[in-house]
Each structure stands twice: as C-alpha cells, then as structure tokens.
C-alpha cells in the first residue's frame, strides 16, 4: 500500500487572495479526496441589519464583496423597492444597468487574469488586468469609486451621468472591445491553454442543474440560466441572449465568460442608446413591511437577497445567498479525480468569491 500525500491547500495560497481551504489527498498527483473548509471570511454581516436602518444598510451590502459590490447594492435596493412599492425613475434603472454591466466587465476581466495566472500564463494576466484598468477608470469617473461604487440607493441612484460622458463611454467601448477581442482570442485559441482546460473539471448538464450551479458555471454546461432574462432593472428593454457552451469543462466556462464580455459591451451600448431623460432618484419615506426574494445576475451567477421588513426602519432579516455558495457542491464534484495541477484551475473556474460566499 503506497502512502498518500495529504496537502492542506490553503487557507493561504497564492492561487486565491482569499482564504479557502481544501484537504487534498493525492496519489501521485491524482486527487482522490478533496473536502473544502470555508468560514475564513465569515464576518456575520447579515446580523448588522438589526443595527443599521435599511437605507444605511446599503453600505454594508456593498461590502459583502468588493468585486460585485454594485450588483449587491442593486439587488438589495430592488428588493426594498419592491416591498415598499416604490417606482424608481426609468433613467435610474438604465444607469443601474450600465454600472452592472461595467461591474461584470471588470469582474470577468479580473477573473480571466487570475485564471491565466492560475495556469501559469503570466503575460495574459497582465494583459487582462491592463484592460480592466480602463473599465475601472470609467467606474471611477462616473461613481467616484474604483471597486466599491456606492452609487445605488433605495429609490434610485446617487449620481447621474452626463450625455457627453455617455457618448464618450460608448465610443471608448469600441476600443476596449478590440482589445478584449485580442485577449480572448489568445484565451480560446492558444494550444497550451486548451491543453490545460479541455476536459478538465467536467460538469454534465444534469449535474450542473441539479447540484445548483448558476452563472457561467451552469452556462458552461449548457444550462441557460441568466437572471437578466427576468427583466429586472432595464434589462426588459434591452435585447441579449444567454451565452452557453456545451462541454461543461474549464474551457467552456472560460469561453462563456470571454463571450459574455461582448454581451456586456453590447448591453451597455444598447442602454446608452436607449437611456431616457429624467430624474435619477425619488424620495423614499416610510419603512418596508413584507418580504421578497430579490434576484439578479451577478458576474458569478444568480444572487438572491431575501429581505423581510417588519414595518420598522430595521429589517427583520436579510439573507444573502451568493452564487459562489451554490457553486460549491458542483465544485466538490468537479474536483474529485482531477490532477493536482488542475485543482487551482478548477477552483478558479467557478470564479469563487469567498468574500461573498461567507458574508
């Protein structure tokens, strides 16, 4: 009987800046057992709901995760607005949509970079993050924040974007699109990348659906779940198709995200073209009483904020179900029987956001 290698993979490991731990049991480099430990980033922010009034709680919600912070605030605000029956001005919906898609662009580029680094392709990492900086510049110019924007509030948004700025953004997107095309071509065509990604961490369509995979993880396996199709914010007025791939391997998930970059650019352009004039917020009074499962599509997949008001300024319950949490069971399935070299790749392929997951 040969001995096995037991590796504590994390919590501190260069593959992810955030802590997550796997007990990897290896035979040679073959993973025979991999069990995750989470909870290194658990702060317990859901209970802060009892200490913050509902408009103020937006700041906490935004800091669930620094990557998709805008979409967290959007989802929360939409939930409160639904419970309270607030009609938000149409321009605010469009602005929210634009910022959501910019968030998605920055998140996907960030992921592509980290993923490239995960397979030892440092040059692409640098390339992806260079493009990402131009996205962050736009976010900073329009909201004031690079990664945490704080521009969404209950009842609308805090800032308007001028028409000239919107035009300029639309124009700049053409250049960015060109750069992204070059980048994703390498990602999807390079043989050494294909070698690392094809048939690695395969998740079948059935598994993806029933294990609860969402977002690009599900879409990579051919499950077309994209919550933007439900038409929240201004998505009901924009046209797009959910991007799916069939194979369910790391390559497919990578391809989904690469292609979604273009969907996002397209959506932003549509939104800029269709954005109506008008105010961007309305005054909100009163307190929410009721409950709602507010759902949206984060870069990592379906996000659910369960909100429950009791008629006071303090909500009774906020429960944030993030896409990474529900992508963990598929991850556990994918990682079994892979190679050690695939472990970081597979973990990265669900685009884990541990900060989100553990709240």
């Amino acid at each position: 009987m040969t001995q096995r290698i037991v590796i504590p993979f994390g919590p501190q490991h260069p593959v992810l800046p955030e802590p997550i731990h796997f007990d990897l049991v290896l035979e040679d480099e073959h993973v025979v057992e991999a069990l995750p430990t989470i909870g290194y980033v658990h702060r317990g922010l859901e209970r802060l709901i009892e200490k913050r009034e509902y408009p103020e709680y937006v700041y906490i919600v935004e800091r669930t995760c620094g990557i998709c912070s805008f979409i967290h605030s959007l989802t929360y605000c939409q939930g409160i607005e639904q419970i309270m029956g607030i009609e938000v001005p149409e321009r605010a919906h469009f602005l929210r949509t634009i910022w959501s898609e910019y968030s998605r662009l920055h998140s996907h580029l960030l992921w592509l970079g980290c993923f490239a680094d995960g397979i030892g392709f440092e040059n692409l990492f640098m390339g992806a993050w260079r493009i990402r900086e131009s996205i962050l510049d736009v976010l900073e110019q329009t909201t004031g924040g690079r990664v945490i924007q704080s521009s969404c509030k209950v009842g609308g948004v805090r800032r308007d974007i001028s028409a000239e700025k919107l035009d300029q953004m639309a124009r700049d997107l053409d250049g960015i699109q060109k750069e992204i095309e070059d980048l994703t071509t390498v990602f999807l065509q390079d043989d050494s990348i294909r070698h690392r990604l094809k048939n690695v961490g395969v998740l079948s369509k059935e598994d993806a659906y029933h294990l609860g995979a969402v977002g690009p993880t599900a879409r990579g396996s051919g499950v077309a779940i994209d919550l933007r199709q439900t038409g929240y914010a201004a998505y009901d007025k924009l046209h797009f198709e959910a991007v799916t791939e069939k194979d369910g391997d790391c390559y497919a998930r990578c391809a989904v995200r690469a292609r979604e970059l273009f969907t996002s650019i397209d959506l932003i352009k549509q939104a800029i073209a269709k954005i109506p004039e008008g105010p961007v917020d309305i005054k909100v009074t009163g307190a929410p009483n009721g409950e709602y499962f507010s759902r949206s599509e984060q870069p990592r997949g379906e996000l659910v904020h369960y909100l429950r008001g009791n008629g006071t300024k303090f909500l009774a319950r906020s429960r944030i179900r993030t896409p990474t949490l529900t992508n963990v069971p598929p991850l556990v399935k994918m990682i079994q029987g892979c190679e050690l070299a695939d472990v970081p790749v597979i973990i990265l392929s669900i685009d884990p956001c541990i900060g989100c997951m553990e709240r």
Partner: protein
Amino acid sequence: MNELLFLIGFPAIIAILMLFIHKDKLRNYIVIPSAVIIGVASIWLLISCFNKNTILYAFPFEPASKIMYIIELLLAIFILYLGIKYRKTLTVALVLIQAGLLVFFETYLSSGMHPENNLFVDQFSIIMAMIIGIIGSLICVYALGYMDTYHKHHTEVKDRKNIFFFILFIFLSSMFGLVFSNNLLWVFFFWEVTTICSFILIGYSQTPEATNNAFLALAMNLLGGVAFMVALIYIGIIDPSGKLLELNTLIMSGQAIALVPAVLICFAGITKAALMPFSSWLVGAMVAPTPVSALLHSSTMVKAGVYIIVRFSPVLAGSLEGFLIALVGGFTFLLASSMAISQSNAKKVLAYSTIANLGLIVACAGIGTYKLMWAAILLIIFHAIAKSLLFLCVGTVENRIGSRDIDDMSGLIVRMPKIAVMMFIGIAGMFLAPFGMLISKWAAIEAFIVAPLGLLFVAILAFGGSITVFFWAKWMGKIISVPQVMERIEDTVTKEKWAVLYILAGLTVVVCLIFPLISSVLVEPFILNIYGQTAQLAQANITIMVMMLFLLMIMPFSMLFYRDGQKYVGPYMGGMTTTPTMQFTGAMGTVRDTTMGNYYLKNYFGEDKLFMIGTVLCLGILIFAVILTAGVVL
C-alpha cells in the same frame, strides 16, 4: 591450485558441519571464523595470483566427474520428487529433459573425452572470488543475527536454520567452483547446484507464495540448464576429444566453432541473470529472508549468469547473435529501471534495479568490445558491493520497523541514523557521481559510442540512466524527510550486523577511491590478455572524481557551522498550524496527519504493462537468436 581447492572445499565442509548444529551460539562461533577464513583466503588468492595471467591446473577429470554425475542425478530425483509432490508439471518436464540429456551425454559422449586443465584462475576469476569470498561471507555473518530476529517475528515459519546455513555455505562453495572451473561440464555441475540452492532458499518459509516463487525460479533456471546441456552435447558432437570442453580453449577457438555453444550458454546465463523475459523469478525471490536476496542478487547466483556471459563476450563480439543478446540486456535495463519507479517495496526496487544493472552488464558483454568488457567488469564489482549493502540495510530496517515499504522509512535519519547514513551511501553508490556505478555507466557510454550499433545503446543508457535517478532520489528523500518528532530505535541491532554493514559501507566508498588500482591491477591485464588492448578512464577525470568524493565527504561537516543563529519554524502548510507530530485540523473539523507519499507514476511505469512489453520484446529477440543459431547448426 591448493587455494582453489581450499576455497571450493572449505565452505563445503563448513556446510556439512552446519547441518548438524542446532544451537545458535555454537553456530555463531563457527560461522564467524569460517567467514573470516574464506575472506582471508580469497584475499590470499588475490595476493598470490594477481600478477599472473591465466593459470591452468590439470586436475584429474574422471573421478570428480563421476561424483558430480551421481550428485546431479540424485538432485534430479530430489527435484522430480518435489515437482510431483507439488504438481509442478513444467518443472517435472524440464528435469526429465535435462536429466535425459545428461544421461545421453554421459553415456554416449563423455567416454572419449579427456579434458586436462579442469581448473584455472585468472584476474576475472579472482575478482569474482573476491566478491564471493568477501561479500558472500559477510552476508553469511549478517544472516546469523537476521535469522534470529526473523524467526522471532515469523513464528509461523519452521526453524530450519541448520539447513539454511548449510545451503548458504554450499552456495559459496559452488560459486567458487563455478568461477574456478575450466571444464564446462564442471561449470554445469556447479551451475545446477546454485540453481537448486536458490530454489531451497527462496522456498525457505514454506508458505504457498514462497513455494510457488521457488518453483518459478527453478523452472526458469532449469530451462537455462537445458540450454547449457544442449551446448555441452553440441560440443561433444563436434569435438569428441573433449578438448573444447575446456573453457579457455573454447573461447580461443573463434566464432566459427564457439558461437553456437556460446549463444546457448549465454541463454542459460540470461535465465540465471534474470533478464527479461525471465525477470519474474528474481522479483518473486524477494519473499525469501533478506540475506538470501542479498546473496542471490548481489554477489552470487545472478552474478554467475553475467559471469559466464562476460566470459563468452569475446566470442559474441561483432556477431549478430551477440548484438541480439546485448539488445535483450539493453531493453531489460531500460524497462526494469522504469518498473522500479512504480514500486514502493524497497526489496522490489532493489530487485528491479538488480535486473536493470544485470541487463546493462549483458548489454556490454553482448557487444563485447574491449572497452565494454572493461565497463562490464567494473559494473559487476560496484554493483555487488553497493547492492549487498542496500539489501542488508533494508533487512535491518525491516527487522526493526516491521516493514520493507519505502514510504514507511520516512525520518529514518532520526530513527536509525547510522543505518540511514549507510543506506544513503549505498544509494549514492548506485547512481550518483562520483560513485562506482556511475563511473561504470560513464565508461559504458564512452565505450558504446564507438562500438558498432552503439547509438542505440547510448540512447538506452541516456534514458535508463535518468530513470534510475528518479527512484533512488525519492528513496533518499524519504529517508531524510522527518516528521518533526521521532525517537531513535536503532539500539537493538547486533554487533555482527553492525560490523558487516560498516565493512560494506566502507567498501562502497573505498572501492571508489581505489578503483583505478583495481582496474590497473586486475581488470586491465585481463582485458589486455584477451584483446591485446585495454580501456581506462583518463587520469584527469579520475583526479576530479576523487576530489569530488572528498568534497562530498567533507560537506556534511558544514552542518557543524550551523549549530547557532538559526530560527526554527514549522514547515509551510498554507498557514495551517500543525502539532509537533505534523497534524492539522482539516475540513469537517477532522484532525489529519500530514503524510507524504512518493510518486509512483503507475500509469506510465506500471509493472504489468512494462513487463508485458519487455516479455514480448525480449522473448521475440531471443527466439530470433535461437532460430539464427539453429540455422548455423543446420
């Protein structure tokens, strides 16, 4: 001549004595001095004969041959009995064939034969005698302590130590006989005795597995014996006078006459040296107590196989048959080295490494240029020493920790520091510069490169040599990777064992230092005698090697400078805190041991797959060689 007779006869007498001694103490009192005597006698042989070339002795043929004939028939009956008892059809058939051939030979051919020079000694014999006399008798001494512990641990095995030591000494005696006999009929006799000795030793524990493996070894060696017998009959037919039965005459008689018997005898040598496709017997022989493995695989038995092939090497040189035999050796080297990667059992690693190195020796001998012969003889010397040291180290460790698995040897450097250091020396001796095996491989590369069709073998060496790095280095790594807290458990090893291990470890190093001397005194004159020219390593390189060896020996002292000013922290565990015994709290709150297994790369170097390839390949080549030889005869 008296030295030779003493070396053959003395162990035989001790052997018979052993049969009647049942008391451990008394046995110790006899074995140790006799081992010393045998060792001294072989050194004496060296001193008295090293400066002479081949010396032939006219020992009377008739009476001795008759006695041998009778013993052989008795042994055949013994095997026949066992074969029928255990229902081993193949063995029975082979024994019957072999005995039939022998009777045919004795009845129809031997009457007219009168070989005169039945014993001889030359430098090669001296080298072999030294290996047998020193290493073989050291192993006998080691076996004393080992077998005590063995029987304490394996109470289910019946204590038959008297027979065990009887066979050990018979083994030594017959090995001496084998290397001193100039008469092929006698070589055959000793050959058969070693076969049967190994059969009994492998089956010592009498478990079904041991019995099966013993019969496997027997069957394969009997097959070789049949080939040997056919060679004798062939010689008897082409030369009724029996002059060609003399080994030196046969070898000098040139390819036209000697090639057919040479190929047949080399076939026998291949079975004995456990080359593919016959390697399975040697691997199976690992069930035997460790001293047996050490004896069979380092200094005797398999060395008999390569001895005879190297002897016939001048005959093979330049012939297609020789090339084919070399090819079998080459492939065996490559494949057996690869298979060693996939093994975690230390003895199996040693077994495959043995097979590999024997393959390399045969590859050298098959091509048979003077440079290659030089390399082959160096390989025999270095391999015998380092390998026996390793076997005995593994045996000692096994006795103490109850496992021969390399994965269980982690932290050995703390648990059994002295053994670990010796194991280190042994392993380094097997594959690292500036130790012996590497010198020999280097010599082989330099020799193959100018040999006909040498590129193939250079490539085999390049790949096979690299592969050996993998399994030896990971074994070394295991010994020194220390889970933090371990206690020392070395104190129960007996004094004789220490003595044996010290001598062998010392030899491994010393022989590297004095190998230029060995080469110039023994190997080079021998080769010069045969080929008229000889090989040697360049003086500059030898100097550098020796300097490296000294550097290697003083490097460990650098540790003394690091006693102070060090901060100790635990190993990097991804931020996890570990206990001193290297446990951490993993997922689901379970406390896990940090274990570290080696890589075995089974999908690439798996035993089954490569064995199949090797068998098909080597069997094919051998069959081709046999057909070729048959073509020559007809």
